[in-house]
């Protein structure tokens, strides 16, 4: 949150902290971290990482530190336009984040440093690519030392990836409960038996969990235990192979036909695209949130105009496909994310302020809500008034499609339940939304029974 003072997520590491001043983000490097920071900059590691696009850029600035007694340097990191969290990523996003972390670790060791933590929250997506954001996560490598961040890597990356890949994709949501990664005993107990036959999972997950249990509450003297540099490199290489081998494909679906279940004619679909593009040209938003984006077909209309777009969907398969397609075509203006709008990410962690809620990361300049309203109003029983109120908290303008009861998609939703939605009609929709928005334009989509609206939030 861009309130002047220390960032609410930055308090664990005594090496420094992030703070906001005049809506600008800075990082204070504390004196205790002076030697490590100087080594990061002087060893060539920072240059190597920035040249490879693996770490966020920063510049040293001359300004009054927030805590002058502790301060060594103040740096100004590049801003990430939209902060996202591991429980909002699809499988391949988490996998790419893991590989980025290991690539950073490999380069660090080449320059005589190691990562002292391996939190998945140290990764953010910038232009659809994962980038390491914690400049203070490095420390000098001492010959013989094991990797202090190994446990955290397994909990933050290997456990969720193996559960998503081998058990159930929805288990990624455990990351929302366990902020320091999924406990390995839990992951081990959930993984299917055949994972014992895979060396990486047998060792890094099952044996690791057993070892943790064995040494729990024991006072252990580890003096004399050393790990050679070769073993260190072997460990990181083995983790990298394990992550690369993780695969997930939506079961029982063919991606090519994944979202053919629409009642649009090809012409109506194309017409809808033109209308959305025209509306975007009219309002020229600085950023767009596409809610219920499916595989991001309409998000592309915004990104093609150079508009930074977050493409949200509830379906892990749709988000996965969207991300992989964005990667394949080198998309830089779309960030696909997994969000259940009926239960969007809350503020969690220490004081409920460590990880921001979805709403507190807004508002978006424009929200696209296409073929969405019936899912909220009918599948989730949310009154139109509340839907309108919610949208008014997350955007300045709204491009929304009304899907009437006569539409086959709505008929499908009503086919197995009683129709208790007497107020679900176009007139009521317009009335409820007019309480929060000014309807600037509306147009019936030819060859369908749907209507597209362009709305602007009422002042106050």
């Amino acid at each position: 949150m861009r309130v002047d003072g220390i960032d609410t997520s930055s308090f664990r590491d005594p090496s420094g902290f992030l703070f906001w001043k005049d809506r600008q983000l800075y990082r204070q490097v504390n004196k205790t971290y002076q030697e490590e920071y100087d080594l990061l900059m002087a060893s060539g590691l920072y240059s190597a990482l920035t040249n490879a696009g693996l770490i966020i850029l920063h510049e040293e600035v001359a300004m009054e530190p927030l805590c002058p007694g502790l301060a060594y340097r103040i740096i100004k990191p590049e801003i990430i336009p939209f902060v996202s969290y591991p429980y909002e990523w699809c499988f391949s996003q988490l996998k790419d984040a893991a590989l980025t972390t290991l690539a950073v670790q490999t380069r660090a060791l080449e320059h005589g440093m190691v990562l002292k933590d391996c939190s998945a929250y140290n990764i953010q997506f910038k232009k659809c690519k994962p980038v390491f954001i914690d400049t203070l996560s490095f420390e000098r490598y001492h010959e013989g030392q094991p990797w202090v961040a190994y446990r955290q890597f397994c909990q933050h990356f290997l456990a969720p990836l193996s559960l998503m890949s081998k058990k159930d994709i929805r288990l990624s949501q455990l990351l929302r409960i366990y902020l320091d990664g999924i406990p390995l005993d839990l992951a081990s107990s959930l993984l299917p038996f055949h994972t014992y036959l895979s060396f990486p999972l047998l060792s890094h997950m099952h044996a690791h969990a057993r070892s943790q249990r064995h040494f729990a509450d024991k006072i252990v003297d580890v003096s004399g235990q050393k790990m050679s540099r070769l073993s260190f490199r072997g460990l990181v290489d083995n983790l990298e192979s394990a992550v690369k081998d993780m695969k997930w494909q939506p079961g029982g679906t063919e991606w090519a036909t994944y979202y053919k279940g629409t009642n649009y004619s090809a012409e109506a679909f194309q017409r809808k695209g033109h209308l959305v593009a025209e509306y975007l040209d009219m309002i020229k938003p600085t950023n767009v949130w596409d809610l219920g984006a499916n595989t991001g077909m309409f998000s592309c209309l915004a990104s093609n105009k150079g508009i930074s777009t977050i493409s949200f969907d509830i379906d892990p398969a749709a988000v996965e496909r969207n991300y992989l397609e964005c990667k394949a075509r080198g998309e830089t203006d779309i960030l696909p994310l997994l969000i259940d709008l009926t239960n969007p990410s809350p503020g969690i962690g220490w004081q409920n302020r460590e990880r921001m809620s979805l709403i507190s990361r807004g508002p978006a300049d424009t929200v696209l809500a296409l073929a969405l309203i019936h899912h909220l109003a009918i599948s989730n029983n949310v009154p139109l008034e509340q839907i309108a109120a919610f949208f008014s908290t997350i955007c300045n303008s709204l491009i929304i499609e009304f899907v009437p009861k006569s539409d086959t998609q709505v008929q499908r939703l009503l086919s197995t339940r009683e129709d208790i939605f007497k107020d679900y009609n176009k007139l009521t929709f317009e009335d409820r939304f007019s309480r929060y928005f000014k309807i600037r334009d509306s147009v019936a989509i030819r060859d369908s029974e749907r209507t597209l609206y362009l709305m602007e939030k009422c002042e106050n």
Partner: protein
Amino acid sequence: MAIIFVPSDMFQGYYYLDPGSGSLFIQLAIGAFVGGLFLIKNYFVRIKCFFKKLFNNGKKV
């Protein structure tokens, strides 16, 4: 679950996170094994590169 960890001279770093004794010990065991595999893998890659280079008339592989 509490893990009590006694630092030694070898662990000279200044850790703000608990690395976990169980995690350290299993890491040492896995590291000893995969370190050897890593060495073999590296030699294998070098040999593969050598032959590729040989059959590609010295072009960089």
